[in-house]
């Protein structure tokens, strides 16, 4: 049995995510779409906090809601005026999009409902049965080279980020 506060928090955040993710893709003003995306990302971070991954929620807010959203807003302001409105969709494209996404949603939900996971544990049981993940555990997992430790992917990501910086500067510089 989960606490009432957890259930209320879940419903508020899930409703926010559902509404704002639909608004993100239907809004005709691109700056508003970016703002709605920010709300979706923050809602996901709240889910991470609720599920007991505090470090990941902090990373989500710092990297996604901080870094990537600033990139989006900068590029929107650089490439068009903020009061520009996207033209109305023709009915053919909209029909195609609705068909694909609704069919995908129905298929995914059917697959999940028939998955043998329905008798799973509740959130409180899971939080009690799992060990707490503190910074010590995370640091050891990232900088160790043993079993279930991730030194090599960590270094690979650092090289990837360096390559991404160089690539971004090279592609976007003035000729």
């Amino acid at each position, binding site marked *: 049995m*989960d606490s009432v506060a957890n259930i209320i928090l879940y419903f508020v955040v899930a409703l926010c995510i559902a509404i704002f993710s639909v608004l993100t*893709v239907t809004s005709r003003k691109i700056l508003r*779409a970016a703002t709605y995306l920010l709300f979706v990302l923050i809602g996901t971070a709240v889910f991470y906090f609720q599920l007991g991954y505090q470090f990941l929620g902090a990373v989500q807010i710092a*990297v996604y809601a901080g870094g990537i959203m600033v990139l989006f807003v900068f590029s929107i302001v650089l490439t068009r005026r903020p009061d520009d409105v996207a033209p109305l969709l023709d009915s053919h494209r909209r029909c195609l999009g609705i068909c694909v*996404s609704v069919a995908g949603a129905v298929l995914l*939900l059917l697959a999940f409902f028939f998955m043998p996971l329905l008798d799973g*544990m509740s959130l409180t049981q899971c939080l009690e049965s799992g060990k707490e993940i503190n910074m010590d555990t995370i640091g050891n997992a990232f900088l160790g080279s043993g079993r279930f430790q991730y030194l090599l992917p960590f270094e690979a*990501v650092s090289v990837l980020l360096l390559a991404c910086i160089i690539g971004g500067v090279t592609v976007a510089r003035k000729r």
Partner: protein
Amino acid sequence: MDLTILWYIVPSVIMFCAGVYGFCTRKNMIALLISLELMLNSADLNFIVFNRFLFPGTMDGMVFTLFAIAIAAAETAVAIAIIINIYREIGNTDITSVKQMKF
């Protein structure tokens, strides 16, 4: 009432399908990228939810999500650099007006 795994998967599915809809219908390249972020975010949420509810003793899903966030940041930075370059060349960011990638 219990919050089981299915409760967390439903918002994730809605997020993913909204992303698919945006990816199919939008023409602005930045809007396409925003839809892509929605889909990536729902995949991240799924990693976390499956880790918490099916394997609560481990932290592999969390590590996967951390790497996915890092790679998403890198991908967005490069994609926005390309979009700004295209904007300099052809004057808009409409996906239909890009016929070839080679300038």
